[in-house]
C-alpha cells in the first residue's frame, strides 16, 4: 500500500521541523546577512550601511579579480579532471571487488577523512619538501645508481640535486587532487555498483573489447555518477583556500585567499561578501549544468 505524506501530516511535520529550523537558523539567515553585505558600504571600522549599492560587485568584476576567478576555475577544473582520471579506475576496481574486499577498500578511501585537512596538508609538506620523503627516496636511488656505475667502471653521477616540489602550482594541484579524490571516488563507485552487469556481459559477448565496453557501455551508464562526482569535487576545489595558502608559491593565489584577506586584513566585509557571492553564483551555474546533464541522461534511459 502506498502512503503519501498527506496521510501523516503530524509525523511529517515533527520530522521535518528540526532540520528545516536548523537550515533556516544556521544557513539561510547567515547567508542572507552576507548577501545583504554585498550591497553595503563601510561607514566606520566596524559599521556597514546597507545602501543597496552595486559598487562591491562592480569592483569584484574588475579584470584583476575576474582574472583570479578564471585562474581558480582553471585550477579547480584541472583538479577535477585529474581526480576523474585517477578515481574512475579506482571506483571500477572497488565495484568489481569481492564484497569483503569492497568494504575494506571503501574504508581505505574514507580513512583520510578521519584526519583533519590541515594535518594532511602538513603531512604533504613533509613529503614534498626538499628535505622530504620523495627527495630522500630519489637521493637514495641516485646514490645507489651512482655507486653501481662506479662498480661497472663508469663515471659516477654528479651530486644529487633535490627536486623542487613544494611552493608552486604543481604542489597546489597535487594537494587538491589528494584532498578531493574521495569526493570523486565515492559517487563514481555508487553509480558503478548499481549498474546492470548483464549489459556489460552482453557487450563482451557481442564482440566488444574491454576498453570499448568501458567507454561505450560503462561510462554512459555511469554518467550521472560522473556528473555528481565532478560537481562535488569541483565546488570545494574552487573555493579551496588552505591548500594554495600552505603549498602554493608566489603565484598560487586563488579567489578564496583574496576573500579571506578582505574579511581580515582589509576589513572590507562588503567587498569580501561580494566576492564570496560571485563564487556562489558560479557554483549555482555548475549545479544547473549538472542538472542538465542528469536530465538528459534520464531522458535517454
Amino acid at each position: 500500500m502506498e502512503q503519501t505524506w498527506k496521510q501523516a501530516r503530524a509525523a511529517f511535520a515533527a520530522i521535518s521541523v528540526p532540520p528545516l529550523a536548523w537550515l533556516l537558523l544556521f544557513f539561510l539567515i547567515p547567508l542572507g546577512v552576507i548577501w545583504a553585505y554585498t550591497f553595503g558600504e563601510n561607514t566606520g571600522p566596524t559599521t556597514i550601511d546597507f545602501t543597496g549599492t552595486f559598487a562591491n560587485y562592480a569592483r569584484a568584476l574588475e579584470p584583476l579579480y575576474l582574472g583570479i576567478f578564471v585562474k581558480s576555475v582553471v585550477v579547480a577544473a584541472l583538479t577535477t579532471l585529474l581526480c576523474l582520471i585517477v578515481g574512475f579506475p579506482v571506483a571500477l576496481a572497488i565495484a568489481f571487488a569481492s564484497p569483503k574486499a569492497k568494504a575494506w577498500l571503501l574504508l581505505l578511501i574514507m580513512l583520510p577523512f578521519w584526519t583533519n585537512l590541515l594535518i594532511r596538508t602538513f603531512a604533504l609538506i613533509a613529503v614534498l619538501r626538499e628535505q622530504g620523503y620523495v627527495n630522500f627516496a630519489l637521493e637514495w636511488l641516485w646514490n645507489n645508481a651512482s655507486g653501481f656505475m662506479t662498480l661497472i667502471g663508469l663515471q659516477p653521477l654528479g651530486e644529487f640535486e633535490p627536486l623542487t616540489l613544494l611552493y608552486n602550482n604543481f604542489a597546489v594541484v597535487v594537494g587538491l587532487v589528494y584532498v578531493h579524490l574521495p569526493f570523486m571516488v565515492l559517487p563514481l563507485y555508487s553509480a558503478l555498483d548499481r549498474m546492470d552487469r548483464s549489459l556489460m556481459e552482453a557487450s563482451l559477448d557481442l564482440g566488444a573489447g574491454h576498453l570499448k565496453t568501458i567507454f561505450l557501455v560503462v561510462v554512459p551508464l555511469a554518467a550521472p555518477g560522473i556528473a555528481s562526482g565532478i560537481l562535488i569535487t569541483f565546488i570545494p576545489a574552487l573555493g579551496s583556500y588552505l591548500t594554495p595558502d600552505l603549498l602554493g608559491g608566489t603565484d598560487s593565489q586563488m579567489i578564496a585567499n583574496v576573500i579571506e584577506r578582505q574579511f581580515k586584513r582589509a576589513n572590507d566585509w562588503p567587498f569580501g561578501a561580494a566576492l564570496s557571492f560571485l563564487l556562489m553564483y558560479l557554483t549555482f551555474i555548475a549545479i544547473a549544468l549538472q542538472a542538465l546533464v542528469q536530465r538528459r541522461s534520464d531522458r535517454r534511459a
Partner: protein
Amino acid sequence: MAKGRYLRGASRRSLLQSFGAAAVGITFSSGLSACGGSGGGGRTVNVHNWDTYIADDTADNFRQATGITVNYTNFASNDELFAQFRAGNPGYDVIVPSNEYVTRMAQAQMLQELDKSLIPNMSNILPEFQDAPFDAGRFYSVPYTWLCIGIAYRKSKMPANFVPNSWRYLLDSPQFSQRIAVLGESADLIRIASQYKQYRPGHVAELTGIPDAVLSQVEQMLIRQKPHIKQFHTDNGQDLLVSGEVDVVMEYNGDIAQVMRDNDDIAWVLPTEGSMENQDCLCIPANAPHLAEAHAFINYILEPQPGADIAEYIQFATPNSAAKALMPDNYKNNSVIYPTPEEMARLRYGAFEGDEVSRRYEEIFTRISAA
C-alpha cells in the same frame, strides 16, 4: 603576523593560525564571560594572547600571588583578533595586539582606557617605552615585548664572507633566485620595500604617508622579483630556513633567535636601508567583565621576576628594565634580540593610517600575487 613563539621543529603557530582560518575564516569565541560568574567567589581573568607567548608558570604564579585564576586562550594574528571583536567583546579581559592594531582597535572603540593608578609597576618600563607614537599618552596600552623584522640567512649557502645586509637580495635581485621567502603580510612588505626604495621620512617614529609614486615603484619591483621568490610566507620563515627550503628569509628577530640556539648555520642581519619595529602591548578590551583583575594581571606582568621569566621563555626583547636586569648576559647581549643603537635608529613603526590605506595595500598585494 603571528610570531613564532618558542617553537622548535613543526610549526604549531602556523598550525593554529590555519586551524582558526580553516574553520570559517573568522572565529567568534562563544561567551567566555560565563567563566567569570559569582559561583564559588573565585576571581578570574580571561587572557587572550599569542600562542606560546608567555612563560609556562606565569598563570600559576599569578594565582598564588593574587588568588585570581587565569583563563588563557590564544589568537593567531592581529587580523583574527580584530575580527573577533567586531561584534563586541566576546568576554576577554586582557588582549595583546601589536602597535598598529592598538591604534586600529582604539579607533574602533574596542579598547578600554587603562587606570594607571592600578598599574604602579609601569615605573619598571624603560623611559623610551613610557609613551608610544601609536597610542600617544599610553591611554590604552602597556608595552609587553618589542621586535623587529630583518633578514635571516644560511651562512653555508652564501658566497665567502658575504652578508646579505640589504633588502635588495630579497626584493630586487636574482642572486638568490627561488631561495628567498618574504613575509606575505601586505602592509609590512610594502613598507619595507618602500624603505628600500629610499622612502625615509627623517627621524620619525612611524613610517606613514608613502607616496603613490613610491607605491607603484614598489609594486613594479615586487612583480619583477616575484619569479625569484619562493614563497610569501605566513610568518613561518624560520621553518623554511631550518628545513632548507630557502637560504634567505624576511622574518621577526625573536623567531630567528629561537632557531639560532639550535642551528649554528643560521645568522641574522638588519638591512642598512632600515626596517620595521613592532611592539606587542597589553590592553584591556572595552566591556571587559573583570576590570580589576585585568589591571592586576597587567601590573603583575610588569613586575621584575614574572617579566624576566617570560623574556627567558619567549626570547623576545622586553621593554621592562627591571626584568631585563634579572636576565643572563647571553640574553641581554644577544645582538639578534637587541639591535645596536645605530640599527635602532633605522627602525620605524608601521602605523595604522585608516581602513582605506589598509585596503589599498591589500589590493597592491593581490595585484602582485595575481601578476
